[in-house]
Structures are given as C-alpha cells and as structure tokens.
C-alpha cells in the first residue's frame, strides 16, 4: 500500500510503501535506483513482517532531497521517520546503497536495529577490487553488471527503454533525479567513513551477496564481517547485484530464516 507520510513537522513528505500489517517491523532501504514499483520480495516478506519501504528524499514522490547532503543526513532521516511512526526498534534490510545507509543507521543509534541484513551493500572501497563506475554506464551496459544473466526476461524488463518519447523523457528525468541523490553518497567513491563507525553496530548482521555480483563483487562481504562484530556472510548462487529480484525465493528464505532465527 502506498501512503504519504509527513515528517519534520510536515516539512517533508515521504512516499511509503507498506506490505503486510502483522509481525515485527521491517524497514527496507532501497538502492540507488529506488523502489521499482514492482518489488515482489517485499510482498513476500509482508507475510511475516510489517514491511515499511520508504523512498529516500529526492526519490519518487519523497520531497526534501536538497536537505540531505551526506550519509549522516540520510541515516538521521530514517531515524526521524521511525520516530514519527513510533517504532523504537526494527529489523533493517538494505540493498546496495540502502545497505550502506542501513549500516549507518545501525551505527548511529545501536538500539534501533534489532537485526540487520545488508544485501550487496556499498560503503567500502578496495583498491585491488575497484567497483565499476556505474554512473558512467549506459543502460545497455548496466545489465551485465547488475544481473547474473543479463539476457533473462527479468533483466530485459529492467533495462527496457520505452518507445514513447514522453515516457522516455520522464524515465530519463526520474533516473537523473535518483542517481543525482545517490551521487551524494557514492560519487566518486562510496567510502564515506563507514569503516570508522561500523564498529558500533551491535545488531546481529547477515551479509547477503549474489555470487555473480559484478557491480560490487562478493569480496566486499569480507569488509562488513571485518568491521561489524556479529556479522556472518551468506552467498546466493544464480544471482548478481539485483539478488532480491533475481533469486526472490532464496532471498526471502534467507532473510526470513535470519530474522526469525
């Protein structure tokens, strides 16, 4: 269900998508591409959790992007949203850029995250394993970095370019809006100090990775276990960077198993 939630005394509007109603709260933080509108794994997790998936300011219909300059501003925004919803503690699942921000949320206030799931998360940089410059990739090139199988129907649907010129223009503008927000955390290198703060994370943490992730290679999982006290890694075969979409069942099973366990 889509709702508009006001925060900061009504100054910010947040586009929220909620799934399910019972169960423990689960905050889902999207990646640089934002929520896609068709995110079946969130429906699935909604069967066991009260899933809250907000759009970060500057994404979708959420306003106030100009008030967020860096990862700390973004992490405080998520805290503020949970305050507004009256949620003291929640499971936090973050994908890619959202994983980076989820780790920051959990480091800033260690009581907030009950359990943490980081999926193909950004936030570190290894000189010997540089992350491709995805801001400079064409949509046509992007596929091979995002998906284990860039020719799969799913990948093709993601990378489809509308034929209608107005739709194309709207898509382009929306893409620019989202990636330009993401650039505040990821450009030109996504190391924004998480390595200094990650030691504070107290929540049990599952680091999930697609075995064929060519955008942020699986070697980065090791950085999270190195810096976070209670972290373990699980790798899922047949998935690239878009793991939650590509291996929907295995992903939901792993997340459910960890959060319920």
């Amino acid at each position, binding site marked *: 269900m889509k709702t508009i939630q006001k925060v900061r005394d009504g100054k910010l509007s947040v586009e929220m998508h909620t799934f399910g109603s019972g169960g423990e709260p689960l905050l889902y933080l999207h990646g640089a591409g934002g929520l896609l509108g068709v995110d079946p794994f969130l429906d699935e997790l909604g069967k066991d959790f009260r899933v809250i998936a907000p759009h970060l300011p500057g994404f979708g219909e959420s306003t106030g992007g100009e008030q967020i300059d860096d990862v700390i501003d973004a992490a405080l925004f998520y805290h503020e949203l949970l305050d507004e919803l009256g949620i003291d503690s929640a499971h936090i699942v973050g994908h890619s850029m959202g994983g980076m921000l989820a780790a920051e949320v959990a480091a800033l206030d260690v009581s907030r995250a009950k359990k943490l799931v980081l999926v193909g998360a950004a936030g570190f940089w290894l000189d010997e394993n540089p992350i491709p410059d995805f*801001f*400079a990739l064409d949509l046509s090139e992007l596929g091979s970095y995002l998906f284990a199988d860039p020719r799969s129907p799913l990948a093709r649907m993601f990378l489809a370019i509308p034929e209608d010129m107005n739709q194309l223009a709207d898509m382009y503008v929306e893409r620019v809006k989202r*990636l330009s927000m993401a650039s*505040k955390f990821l*450009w*030109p290198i996504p190391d924004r100090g998480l390595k200094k703060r990650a030691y504070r994370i107290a929540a049990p943490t599952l680091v999930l990775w697609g075995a064929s992730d060519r955008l942020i290679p699986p070697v980065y999982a090791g950085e999270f276990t190195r810096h976070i006290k209670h972290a373990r890694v699980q790798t899922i075969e047949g998935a690239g960077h878009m793991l939650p979409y590509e291996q929907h069942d295995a992903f939901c099973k792993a997340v459910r198993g960890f959060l319920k366990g």
Partner: protein
Amino acid sequence: MKFTWFHLMPYRYLPDDFKDKYRSVWVDIPRDLYDPKVGHRLYNDYLDQLEFADQMGFDGLGVNEHHQNAYGLMPSPNIMGAAMARRTRNANLVILGNSIALYNPPVRVAEEFAMLDVISGGRLVAGFPVGTSMDTNFCYGEVPATLREKYFEAHDLIIKAWTEPDVFAFNGKYTKLRYVNLWPKPIQQPHPPIWIPGGGSVETWDFCADHAYQYSFLSYFGYIAGKKVADGYWNVMAKKGKELNPYSLGFAQVVAVANTDEEAERLYSPHMDYFYNRCLHVYNGFADAPGYRTVSTIRAGVLAQVGKEAALRREGMTWKDFVDQGYIIAGSPKTVRERLTHAMKSLNCGHLMILQQIGSMPPELVRLNTELFAREVMPQMRGLWNGFEDKWSPKPMPEPERAMPAPLNFRRVETNGKTATAAVAPAHESRSAK
C-alpha cells in the same frame, strides 16, 4: 564587433584508428598516446600562434580549462595567461576560464586572476565556467548534485575577495576561511570583467542576466545549432528587462579562410575531420553525469555537445555538410565575411570567439587562416554593432604606462654542427661587472 582568437590546444597526433580503438578522447584516454617532447613543441607553437594573433590586431586571446583531454591540453589556462602576459602587448587575456568549484579554496582563483591582471596591466577577462561534466565530475570527482551550489558559493567568495576593502571571514558550506585578504588585488576596479562560458544550462542565463555578466556560448556546432541557445539567453534577458546589447553575448565559431572556397576545402578538410571525429570522440557515459544538468535544463531540451547523440548527428558528415549546417564557416574571405556577418547578426553576438587552429591543423595553415581573417574579414566587420557600448571588455592601463619586458640577450650558436642557445652579455655590462 570584437574578436577573440581562441585556442583549445589540441594534441595533433592521435592515431588514425583512434576512434575505433579507444572509447574516449577525454577522462580515460591512454597516457601512452601523449609524448611530452611532442607536447613541448605544441605548447610553444600554440603560444606563438596566440602571440601572432596579438600582432594581427585581434582584441582578445582566448584559452580555457580542460582535464585529461587530448583536444584541450590546458589543465591550467592561467599558466598560458602568464606566458601571454609577457609576450603580448595589446590583446586582452580572455581566460574562459577557471572552473571555480574545483579550486580549494576558491580564493586561489581570485589570487591568480589578480596576478594576471596586474602583470598584464589590466588586460584580463575573468571567465568562470561551471566546467563540463567530464572535467568536474569525472576527472575532479565533484559530486554532480552539489556542483552548482559549490560553484555559486565560490563565485560569491571570489567577488567578495576582490571587492571587500578589509580582511573578512567567510563561513560557507564548502569553504570556511578565517582571514580572506587578497594580495595582490586586480588593476581593474572593482574587478576584471566577468564572462561566463556555458554549454546551454538555463540557470546560467539567469545568473548572467542578474549579475550583468557576459554569457559566452562555447559551442563546436556553429551558429545554426547555436541559435537555439542564443535565443534562450536573449529571451531571459528580455523577460528581465535587460538591454539586448550584442556585446553581452560571446559565441565560439570555427572559421577557416583561404583564397578561394575550393582551396579552403582542400586545405582544411582533413583537420575538420580530425577535430569532429577524433577530438570530439567522447564516451557517452562521461557526457552528462546524473545531476550535472538540472532537470529544467534537461526539460528545455538543450542538446549535449559530446556523447552518443552528438556523435550520431555528426555521423558521415562531409565538408559540405559541415559548411551547410554551419559547424564551420569556411571559404574565401568574401564567403566568410558574408556568412559570419549573417551568423553574428542572427545570434545578436558582439564578441566572437574565433577558432582558427582546429584539430590537427599545422602552424603554417594557422598562420594563413589567421592572417587572411585579420586582413580581409575582420576590418570589414568591425562596425557591425556601432551604436552599442561594449561594457564587457577590460579597461587596461594606458599603453605608455605599461611595463615592457626587457630585451633578451640570447642568440642561436652552432657548435660541432649542433644548434644551441647562448646568453650574450653586452660588452659594456661585462666590463662594469668586473
């Protein structure tokens, strides 16, 4: 009408298969394609050409800033400005310019421009471009989303540094300084004229109109494609009730003059091909980082100059196409006079940034092109905007008050069949030293 002789300083020796073998002339071009000994010759040739343009009576000498770019070998145009300040006499030094968001702190620009203005006796035009996405985002790592905000803050700091009589503190978002105190300060008071080179961002038009800065559209596509941008600028000026003074618009145009139209094609055609197909071969992913252009500029439909779309528009273009579509104005002096006059009138442009060295063009052709233009085109176009006041050109010290570089006592000598340079002290000086 005013004429600034503009140099991009390209590398002239990119291989013939460059376009097929490499993805971009900019940002990640392989370093082994650059030979510094060739570079030595090129920089010196190019400075010779700028100095020649000064002697030929051009009003300004133009240089600009690019990074990691084989068609623009000036990471620091100020260094070229310093060289020109000593070896030119009359022409203005049009530095278009320094990408002010890239300097930390931006007072560095205020300082260096003040130095150039003082050395040259007040001949400086200070250009403040935002800079291309390739230069600012990809080469210098600026976050696209905040580049413009940083640019505007740098601008405010530089203007304050030039105009504030006392030491002041500056508490910006991007720059914090306890003591801003500009030594030296510029000759031109309150500051050198400011020109804003742009690629067609709608915000830049408002910025120029609000500050009464000159707007320079540095296009490589020529006056026909450039008209859309010029019209956009004039519309903003008209809406804001500003004077539609042609001197408040600068426009870059490739110009190639020969004795006849046929000779122009024969002499210059290969170099145009080199420029448009090798020099402008930029990887599409670098053309426009997300957030570099604002949503309103994207919606305004201003086309990018580099990248896939731009390359597609140029695909398969012949000399005739380049001429017909106005990318270049080329031909006999008469042809060039007519077309350029028409172009400047259609754009309502009073400051031409003329590009006469283009691509792989060798020194002798540059000289021919420049000389023919200066003798047979420029004088006839001078009076085009009589009745308008040019409020955007520098106001230097009177010529007789300006310092002259002392003559040099070097000469070429031959030793063992090799040429070398030796200092020769005049006889009376060697005696007095003893």
